[in-house]
């Protein structure tokens, strides 16, 4: 008997110890120490603040988990985790979903993607098109209470140019100055008709206060001028934002919500269930195969608009026989875009042989020279080129699963003209390496969030373009794209890009496939929300009823 009891005591002791360990780790504060090893020197101190922050804010969201409708707080589910919250340094869409509601830009894309006033209420362009003078809105405050001044715009742009991911957008900018507190002057080296889109097309160009860079908190606790203030971020609660009472549209009664909580639900099926059961109010994307069933469901609204993203693949023109335009055209003829769209997006997309979608009314160019599964033309072109028994090493990434599906459909379609497709499926970081090193016969991906035609074509197809990994080079296209950058007459500029697009499509620099729809879904109690063509997630006018 004694022995048996000892054993039980041990077992209980272990359990108690384990529980104690769990309890300790919950409450223990973490000594972050001083980092000497690596990385963003300015961000090392930030976490000390953020680890404490949640303690103050846990109460509000906790109530909302039980009855989301009770409080005026929207629970929004994201499919992936924001990597960081510095708008100038992140490239993650999940981060921008949050930051869209925290930061503002100088001007901003309206629902129809034309540029409308934001922090700048007006601007004048000089006669030579080289000087743009912006007048800032009066009485705009950062979330820390400080007034926005022109120096903040200058500082933000200088930071982006010096170290942000989007410095390339200032390619034509010579200087940014602040002659007084409410005036920003941008001088250019060449006329830049797309300047507004370049410097304010998305929240990667956000205007930030210098102090949060200096104290290193920008990556973990953003301070903007937008409709919502950042409150806290933790693995348990997600990201909590609260209403900014000093918002510059407060006189219009905006924002209407008291707050937003972004939760991260990586599994698409679970995310959908959470919307159906009412655990969350809004989800960021609906898997295409679920649109139909979800659309018919009571209590849920599916928002769906043609998006500005485009999917494509490109053949490596630095390798034979893909340097032969006939081989590229043959492949462009042999594939069936409708079939690919149906397989990869369940029809929630529009097949397109050019890059710009019809929804981008200002720049859309209707052009479709290729057939749809036209194997006869394709075979003829391959025969002309003297190519047979071709094998294509096709680079895709399962981190963007549609690329895998699309490659499989293309493989089946190209088999009809005797072309074998060998699919190389790697994770995205490897994919980026292989793309940059030219280790592919073909690669496939998509470009997102473009508005201006320069964004659609220059970097990808100019022989000097930074993303011309397929090795396309055509001096006529180069000069058209160069001319488009400085042409200030809208109609003349459109004509230049139409011409460039025609050559790019004809020569199959990219083989364009389709523009996917932007899709969000929300509970019926959510009002005042709209799925946008640029996929920006804006909750300033959203309310719960």
């Amino acid at each position, binding site marked *: 008997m004694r022995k*048996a009891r000892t054993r039980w005591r041990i077992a209980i002791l272990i359990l108690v110890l384990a529980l104690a360990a769990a309890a300790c780790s919950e409450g223990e504060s973490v000594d972050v120490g001083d980092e000497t090893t690596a990385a963003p020197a300015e961000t090392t101190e930030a*976490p000390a603040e953020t680890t404490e922050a949640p303690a103050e804010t846990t109460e509000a969201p906790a109530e909302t988990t039980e009855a989301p409708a009770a409080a005026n707080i929207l629970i929004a589910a994201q499919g992936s985790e924001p990597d960081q919250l510095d708008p100038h340094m992140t490239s993650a869409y999940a981060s921008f979903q949050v930051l869209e509601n925290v930061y503002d830009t100088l001007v901003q894309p309206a629902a129809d993607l034309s540029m409308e006033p934001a922090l700048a209420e007006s601007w004048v362009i000089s006669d030579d098109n080289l000087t743009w003078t912006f007048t800032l809105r009066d009485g705009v405050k950062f979330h820390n209470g400080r007034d926005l001044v022109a120096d903040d715009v200058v500082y933000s742009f200088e930071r982006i140019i010096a170290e942000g991911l989007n410095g390339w957008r200032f390619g034509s900018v010579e200087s940014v100055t602040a002659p007084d507190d409410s005036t920003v002057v941008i001088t250019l080296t060449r006329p830049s008709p797309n300047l507004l889109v370049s410097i304010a097309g998305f929240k990667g160009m956000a205007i930030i206060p210098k102090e949060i860079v200096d104290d290193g908190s920008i990556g973990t606790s953003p301070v903007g001028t937008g409709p919502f203030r950042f409150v806290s971020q933790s693995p348990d609660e997600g990201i909590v934002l609260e209403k900014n009472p000093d918002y510059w549209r407060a006189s219009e009664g905006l924002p209407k919500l008291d707050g937003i909580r972004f939760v991260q639900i990586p599994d698409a099926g679970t995310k959908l269930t959470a919307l159906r059961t009412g655990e969350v109010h809004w989800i960021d994307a609906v898997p295409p195969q679920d649109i139909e069933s979800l659309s018919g469901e009571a209590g849920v609204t599916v928002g769906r608009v043609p998006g500005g993203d485009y999917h494509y693949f490109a053949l490596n023109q630095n390798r034979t026989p893909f340097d032969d335009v006939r081989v590229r055209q043959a492949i462009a003829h042999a594939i069936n875009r409708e079939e690919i769209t149906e397989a990869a997006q369940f029809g929630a997309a529009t097949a397109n042989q050019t890059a710009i979608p019809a929804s981008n009314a200002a720049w859309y160019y209707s052009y479709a020279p290729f057939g749809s599964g036209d194997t006869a033309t394709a075979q003829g072109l391959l025969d002309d080129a003297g190519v047979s028994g071709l094998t294509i090493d096709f680079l895709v990434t399962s981190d963007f699963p549609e690329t895998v599906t699309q490659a499989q459909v293309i493989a089946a379609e190209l088999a009809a003209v005797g072309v074998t497709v060998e699919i190389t499926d790697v994770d995205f970081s490897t994919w980026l390496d292989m793309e940059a090193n030219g280790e592919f016969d073909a690669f496939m991906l998509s470009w997102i969030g473009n508005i201006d035609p320069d964004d659609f074509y220059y970097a990808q197809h100019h022989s000097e373009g930074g993303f011309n990994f397929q090795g396309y080079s055509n001096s006529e296209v180069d000069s058209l794209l160069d001319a488009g950058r400085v042409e200030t007459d809208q109609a003349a500029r459109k004509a230049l890009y139409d011409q460039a697009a025609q050559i790019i499509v004809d020569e199959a620099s990219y083989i364009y496939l389709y523009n996917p729809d932007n899709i969000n879904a929300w509970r019926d109690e959510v009002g005042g929300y709209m799925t946008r063509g640029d996929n920006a997630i804006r909750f300033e006018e959203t309310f719960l009823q």
Partner: protein
Amino acid sequence: MSGFLVRRILQMLLALLGVSIVVFALMHLVPGDPVRVALGTRFDQDLYDALRERVGLDKPLIQQYFSWLGSAITGDLGVSFRNGQPVTTLIMERLPATITLALAALFIALVVALPAGIISAVRSGTGLDYTVSAASQVGISMPDFWAGVMYILLFSLTLGWLPSSGFAPFGDGIVEWARHLILPALTIGLISGSIITRFVRSAVLEALNQDYVLTARAKGLSEWQVVRRHVLPNAWIPIVTVVGLQLGFLLGGVVVTEVIFAWPGLGRLALTAVKDRDFTVLQGAVLYIAFMFLAINLIVDIIYARLDPRVRVS
């Protein structure tokens, strides 16, 4: 006993050092570059070089390793490449959810496995035994990604009893905490339980076939007394071993289950770190997982020594 402990702890440190070298080497051998991923598709050579220099990736590997090891010894695992947050903070933030899930799953596993395993061994060869065997076979074969989804469909979507995802800290109230915990804990608990059941059964069965059991029965002890006083004490060692292994596995974070239930545990942290090639975070997470395994092994060994004095001598 203290000599035994010192020996084991030294072995443990050596193993951790080995793990750190292997992890570090592996991370730098696999293709994919954290800076390139951070830049996304907008690649620019100057920006790339600047970022690499800033996170110290431009230094020789050996130097990177030793500078990392130097601070790791002091408990500083560096900062994340992606967001500059200390790795220690990132891991500690995830621990409550991970430990909660691990203990709850283990609790479910033991509640199922101990009675089922013992009964099935004692009644070996009967219909009851076959039923338990079949059930545990099903439990082992049922992948968590399938079981988890089925539980969500049934308990969240159809019946509406339990939330489909997320974690509610204990401080938010025990009811919410438990409601969020049940489904993920059930998902892995039943799988672990099925594995443990089979070990319990075979351990008890082996002990039942020993001569001393025959003696005990000959003394006229009841079957339950035989099991409790003579069989179980000798069956504990293999059972403790497998339970320890299961707990080590659970404390490392269960990636698939965490993803399905949006559980903010270590598994998801590690998964994101792999995708982003966030070397420092992944190194930290793997080191932590290795440490948990070794620590639990050590505890298991100490328990052995308590249960069976012969272990202490050897």
